[in-house]
């Protein structure tokens, strides 16, 4: 029963090189046409938000040797804090290590275990991440951290190559993914710029604001119903956090927490349900609240928790001014 597939004496007779040339020409023609079509539709290169891309940025951060600012948070920071604005204002490298839908704790623990020194850590403070079990977000961030720890030389090299290509070719961006294109074609449309795109720094741009009704737009996550940690557990968590911050500080790092701007119902949720978290528990931890940065700043959100591009830029500018005097935090 043992048969061979494509043994050299049974290969269909083909004039090999002309066929290969034809395939290559057609491939180049298809790829170039699609790339051109996508560019004329306004699409630009974008990255995938996957653990390997994050892990690469994590490694690069460590290898930068310190002195830079490291942002640790979730999508709120990925969207709301622009490294491209912050870096020139602070005149230092800014490393965006926020994880969409992830808790900052595993990332912080990873830095505490590592050898990083001389960094300034800017850690997103979203009260529900601290005062609720939030297991899903913790697990997600831990998965990213694990991938970073297990990134072998070959895998790193692989993702470096992908990174370089994604910076340049629209065809490789998530918006040009086959599923996305098929779904658009199914609706009788051609691909158009996606609402969300990620740059090489890990920052996400939301292109089209959705607006927010007082009741909350569909898709807006409400935090009022999430079960709270018992007060002892919350105290223990904050105590752990303080120990980690001490360890980081002992290696010459600085740490500041930042409460990210939110809008409408989400702001109400935070104020009503989590007010005690920053008045009671976060005491003695370096802390910046967006409410105290610039009284003229009125955040505009796409869905309650995430800033529009204009608001993100304005917020980052105010934050930069505050961070210039971080020693006084």
């Amino acid at each position, binding site marked *: *029963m*043992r*048969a*061979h*597939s*494509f*043994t*050299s004496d*049974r*290969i*269909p*007779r*083909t*004039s*090999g*090189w002309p*066929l*290969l040339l*034809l*395939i*290559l020409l*057609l*491939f180049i*023609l*298809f*790829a170039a046409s*699609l790339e051109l079509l996508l560019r004329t539709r306004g699409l630009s290169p974008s990255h*995938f938000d*996957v653990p*390997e891309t994050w892990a690469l940025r994590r490694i690069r951060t460590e290898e930068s040797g310190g002195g830079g600012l490291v942002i640790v948070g979730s999508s709120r920071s990925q969207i709301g804090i622009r490294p491209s604005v912050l870096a020139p204002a602070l005149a230092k490298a800014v490393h965006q290590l926020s994880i969409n839908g992830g808790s900052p704790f595993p990332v912080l623990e990873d830095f505490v275990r590592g050898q990083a020194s001389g960094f300034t850590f800017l850690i997103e403070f979203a009260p529900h991440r601290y005062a609720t079990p939030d297991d899903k977000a913790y697990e997600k961030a831990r998965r990213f951290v694990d991938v970073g720890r297990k990134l*072998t030389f*070959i*895998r790193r*090299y*692989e993702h470096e*190559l*992908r990174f370089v*290509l994604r910076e340049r070719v629209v*065809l*490789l961006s*998530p918006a*040009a*993914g*086959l*599923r996305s*294109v*098929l*779904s658009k074609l*199914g609706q009788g449309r051609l691909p158009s710029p996606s609402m969300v795109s990620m740059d090489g720094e890990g920052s996400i741009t939301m292109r089209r604001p959705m607006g927010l009704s007082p009741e909350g737009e569909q898709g807006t996550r409400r935090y009022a119903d999430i079960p709270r940690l018992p007060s002892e557990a919350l105290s223990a968590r904050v105590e752990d956090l303080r120990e980690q911050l001490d360890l980081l500080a002992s290696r010459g790092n600085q740490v500041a927490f930042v409460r990210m701007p939110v809008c409408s119902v989400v702001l109400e949720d935070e104020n009503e349900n989590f007010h005690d978290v920053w008045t009671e528990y976060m005491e003695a931890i370096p802390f910046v609240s967006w409410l105290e940065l610039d009284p003229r700043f009125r955040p505009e959100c796409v869905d309650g928790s995430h800033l529009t591009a204009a608001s993100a830029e304005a917020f980052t500018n105010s934050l930069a001014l505050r961070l210039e005097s971080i020693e006084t935090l």
Partner: protein
Amino acid sequence: MVFNSISFIVFFAVVLTAHQTTLAWPLKKLLLTVASYLFYAAWNPAFVLLLLLSSCVDYLVGRKMPSARPRAKFWLLQLSLCTNLGLLAIFKYYAFIQTNVLGLMAVFGVELAPWDLQVDLPVGISFYTFQTLSYTLDIYRGRLKPADSFADFALFVAFFPQLVAGPIVRAADFLPQLEKPKQANSSAFVWGLILLVNGLFAKVVLADTLLAPVADSVYGSPNSSGLLDAWIGTFAFAGQIYFDFAGYSTCAIGVALCLGFSLPDNFRRPYGAVGFSDFWERWHVSLSAWLRDYLYISLGGNRGSMGQTRRNLMMTMLLGGLWHGASWTFVAWGALHGAFLILERWVRTRFSPLESRKWIGASFTFLGVCLTWVLFRAESFADAWILFAGMFGTTGLWGGLVGISDSVLTVLVVGSLCLQHFLTRDLSAEELGARIPRGFLAFGVAFMALTVLMCGGNYRSFIYFQF
């Protein structure tokens, strides 16, 4: 390093270039061996030692065996079996064995503390241990003469195209290919590349991008599935696992062909099978042939009574199931296949409805195979029972897990796959390739390459890497 990676393209280009040079054949073989070890080391360099251990033991056993006395020969065979099966037991089945032993002891009131052994599963261990075992068993049975050099044997075990997920190659097929210099002619080289693109298209586009999300959404929330969700999710998985695994095998065959080597077929349009015995002559052929030659026949095959044949069939399928994964769901998957095979034998002895209406037989076989895939894919028996209940309509018609567009896409892709398998079930891969007009072939390959590029964001491993 997986075939659907840029690192592999770079690696392959370097190996191919070196292979095309005018170096002496022994040097080229050495180069291929080193490249294969580097390929394997890309996952976890430490596990290269296991590969080397398995190769050394079986090479030495193979060299000693022909001149050994029967008793010594027997013990040499035991040494090979203990080494290879021991590696599997430690690295693949340790946690499974421990859990079951502790559970069993607990039933008798003996509480034992678990001994935690934190080991990762070495990729491809089930494949290369079976490959080296077949070498020793063939020498033991007098069907094969030992490899002339360790270098040749090491290349046979580690040959990178098929190292981590098959096809499981027999020494009798591969070692003779190392005797004379191998280099692909232009036709073989281009067909090799075509097969590589075809395999990548199956894996990256069809399995990962189109079908996996549908299967994942149903098997990730089985409690919410209705009749249609359960069937669509299972059809999607049936397509996913075929495209994933057959895609890998096609890539492996294509890569080997570019280097001038030929590897055995691993899939022969299995969803066109009429009956379960026919299915196992078409699905993962290199494994089913291995199980048949070294397990089923060793147990007595069909030489005894009907009862003994049934027992042998069931034992072979149970162990085949366990080979796939250290979980009782895989054993149950094997058991269900064994039960279907026994049932089919019983039916065939009384009447032969499958031969007269092949399409009916093929349809029933496909549906039966889909039922077995539930056990293969479900995370637990509880999930599997819920999905079985859903498939038989006890949880409502529609659970909303799969959208209409995904349902249509799944039915279209998997339906076309089944139809193509049925219509071409008697054609060989070469005959099928020869029938495609060259212009259409060039257009198709270029299109497939483009779609592979567009799906480059996926990072799914090949399913069979875990086995």
